[in-house]
């Protein structure tokens, strides 16, 4: 039971993520979570203003079931498959984060300084989250995929555009972490 409740190491988790990718391929589909954002736009009627969203979203309904499942999966894990031990991240990271005003993680997966309901009352924090989400949604579609579509599926399938996209992910990520974090926080 402990093996189930404790965090899973990388060499267990990575192959299991590949299994998810492979299962979807075996079902005749592809692994790509960000495509759902486009589908949601289409369901909302965005096809009226842009041909980019003018497609039969019912063809992509299967992927929304993957989304529904992933929400349930997150719920099951927190409710039944977790301990309340803090995430063991590198102490160097913790001290760097404390300089930016973030306390060390307790049992929380994401920082309350950004995501608590209290933090949402600050227009500045709210703006940070909105900008972050906007960049994710805009960038992933512009790049043609996100971590699941490019980094996992694309690299596994030896797609050069995916390697370029992943390099982009890291250029953006490193810029944010080293250049913008000290400015924003």
């Amino acid at each position, binding site marked *: 039971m402990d093996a189930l409740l404790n965090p899973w190491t990388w060499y267990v988790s990575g192959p299991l993520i590949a299994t998810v990718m492979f299962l979807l391929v075996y079902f005749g589909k592809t692994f790509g979570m960000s495509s759902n954002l486009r589908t949601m736009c289409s369901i909302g009627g965005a096809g009226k203003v842009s041909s980019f969203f003018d497609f039969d979203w019912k063809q992509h309904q299967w992927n929304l079931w993957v989304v529904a499942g992933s929400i349930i999966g997150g719920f099951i894990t927190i409710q039944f498959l977790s301990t309340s031990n803090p995430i063991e991240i590198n102490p160097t990271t913790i001290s760097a984060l404390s300089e930016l005003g973030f306390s060390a*993680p307790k049992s929380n997966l994401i920082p309350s300084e950004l995501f608590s309901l209290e933090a949402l009352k600050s227009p500045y924090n709210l703006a940070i989250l909105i900008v972050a989400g906007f960049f994710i949604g805009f*960038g992933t579609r512009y790049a043609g995929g996100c971590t699941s579509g490019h980094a996992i599926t694309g690299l596994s399938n030896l797609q050069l555009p995916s390697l370029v996209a992943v390099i982009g992910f890291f250029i953006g990520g490193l810029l944010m972490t080293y250049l913008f974090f000290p400015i924003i926080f």
Partner: protein
Amino acid sequence: MKVLKFLFTGIFFGIVLTKSQAVSWYRIVEMFRFESFHMYGIIGSAVVTGLILLQLSKKMNLKTTEGNPINLPEKEKKYKSALLGGTIFGLGWALAGACPGPMFILFGAGYYSISIIILSSILGTFVYGLVANRLP
């Protein structure tokens, strides 16, 4: 019944990503600061396993449940948009600490404020659709 296999695949995905802590903002910061091997190990071993599975299934002529040969669509060879879009995505990924899979998983895990990220990412995709023709 057709949708159940997708629902269960999603549940499995949600459990794996939460148990591996890949959904954690702290893990993403740690990754971009190169202060842990954890995330690189996850992504690296996922890619290697995926590569082996895909190569094997092609060699063995495995058919999908729909009876077709295993065939993944080629990614479009738009290198400039992959790099520019990827960079924009990376900025958001590092700031939110979540990408389009984890944002839904975190919602299920009870972090409801992540819905701000979900909604604004839908908005970002929508705006991309409006300006896509005018981008380099």
